[in-house]
């Protein structure tokens, strides 16, 4: 908390009629970081982001973005944030460069529009109007519009949805450059690899609440155990192996000659297992570690059933 936060939400509630989209959500987003907001469809991600952007007035709770009330101090906040909507936002008859130049004109110190166009490959759009651009071109234009005003904080709602791998990487590379230059980035995504790749912090939202927050590493370490497997000759002394391992570990021979060690799988644990094998004249064949991915953690936290 304090001056290092770009977003502070406390007890945020937002209802649409009888449906509660956001249900007492607390969120603290630190400055200068890339924060990924994850959650199943309908979890309240977009509503949360749009409340921060000033589009929605919370029914209860408080939200401050860059220390400002997004609704009441919108005029002060708007020039300082960059917004990429999930879709649309451009005149159907406008060309990509025309729209980007227009948004640049609304700002006092915009980026060099030509450089940004080249960077995001928007020069390929030529004189084509927005409605005839490919989905990927439309996405990249929306991203460019979010950053062209040199904001302090950028909100990207599913920035790589529907992008090909090259365009995805171009987007990631831009997000990394934004962070390197001190821009705070908040993005929503359904791609766990994207969050692992890009995010300093992850907030998992489900049923309108933040149910987990931390770095991808912290989230993967907590909760589910990781495992190490190897094969050797059958009938090794598992009890002796267990004694060599840290206290929170477990070891078992699953089928004759197939061993599994579970616990906090880190370089130290791997070294312990291999040196135990060396002492016992065992060649650990097919040794492998399975660390939980963010996707495992996400599914564990939010359940596996399909959402609307």
């Amino acid at each position: 908390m304090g001056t290092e936060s770009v977003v502070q939400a406390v007890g945020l509630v937002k209802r649409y009629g009888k449906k509660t989209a956001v249900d007492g959500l607390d969120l603290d987003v630190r400055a200068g970081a890339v924060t990924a907001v994850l959650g199943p469809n309908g979890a309240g991600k977009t509503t949360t982001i749009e409340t921060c952007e000033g589009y929605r007035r919370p029914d209860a709770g408080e939200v401050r973005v860059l220390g400002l009330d997004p609704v009441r101090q919108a005029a002060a906040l708007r020039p300082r944030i960059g917004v990429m909507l999930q879709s649309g936002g451009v005149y159907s008859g406008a060309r990509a460069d025309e729209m980007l130049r227009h948004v640049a004109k609304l700002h006092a110190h915009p980026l060099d529009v030509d450089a940004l166009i080249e960077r995001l490959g928007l020069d390929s759009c030529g004189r084509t109007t927005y409605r005839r651009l490919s989905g990927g071109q439309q996405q990249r234009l929306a991203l460019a519009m979010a950053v062209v005003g040199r904001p302090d904080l950028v909100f990207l709602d599913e920035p790589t949805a529907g992008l090909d791998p090259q365009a995805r990487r171009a987007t990631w590379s831009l997000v990394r450059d934004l962070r390197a230059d001190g821009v705070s980035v908040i993005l929503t995504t359904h791609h766990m690899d994207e969050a692992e790749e890009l995010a300093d912090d992850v907030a998992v939202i489900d049923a309108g609440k933040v149910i987990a927050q931390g770095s991808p590493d912290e989230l993967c370490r907590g909760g589910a155990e990781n495992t190490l497997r190897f094969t050797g000759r059958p009938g090794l002394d598992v009890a002796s192996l267990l004694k060599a391992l840290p206290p929170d570990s477990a070891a078992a021979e699953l089928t004759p000659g197939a061993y599994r060690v579970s616990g906090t799988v880190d370089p130290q644990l791997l070294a312990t297992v291999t040196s135990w094998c060396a002492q016992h004249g065992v060649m650990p064949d097919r040794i492998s570690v399975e660390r939980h991915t963010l996707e495992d953690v996400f599914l564990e936290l939010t359940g596996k059933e399909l959402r609307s």
Partner: protein
Amino acid sequence: MTSTTGTTGTPGTYAPKPGAAPLPRMIAAQAALETKMLLRNGEQLLLTVVIPTLLLVLFSAVDIVDTGEGKAVDFLTPGVLALAVMSTAFTGQAIATGFERRYGVLKRLAASPLPRWGLMTAKTLSVLVTEVLQIALLTAIAFALGWSPHGNPFAVLLLLVLGTAAFSGLGLLMAGTLKAEATLAAANLVFLLLLVGGGVIVPLDKFPGAVESALGLLPISALSDGLRDVLQDGAAMPWADLGILAVWSVVGLGAAGRFFRWE
């Protein structure tokens, strides 16, 4: 796409330096873009330029409608000018704004430094610029057809401004409350009905008495009748028509301000 992968900028390129452009610059840029979008749209040009021009030329040259005493062009020009105002301020603006709302343009602009009232000012400027172009074109054609206008230019200006306000309010009310497709259909239908029943090319006295009085209260009738009183008959100030337009302006703009939904 290959050239874009992995290219990184010079450090510091994206360092935050936020700020809104000066308001007049924002509004001018917005008005310029809106006007460009309108002039680029074929269907809009059909409504705002082609139809009024065709009606003026066709009905002046061919004696289809009995336009009363005097030259047909002297009767038709005020009506067609009223139609031009309606096509831009009402029909065109309603359809364009309806689709901007549908495609998230209004939503995206709401997150930009341009305030909402600035966007509305820009829209109004864009409508006015388009009307100036329409009126220049249509009066040039009318003069070529032998039009001889009379009356007080100030009264004409006042009628055009109030007409624009009345139609803008109604157009924005429609665009801000209905679905885009419904706006498209309704705006075109209203355009057609008012073209026939609003004294544009068919004199209102062709309708039965009760119908005529009712139709006379429509904004298009007030505008075409007011313009005709001045330009054809040399009236000083058509107060009744100005009054009708003023009421429509207050009602239309008030309702639009109250009920307009941005998303």
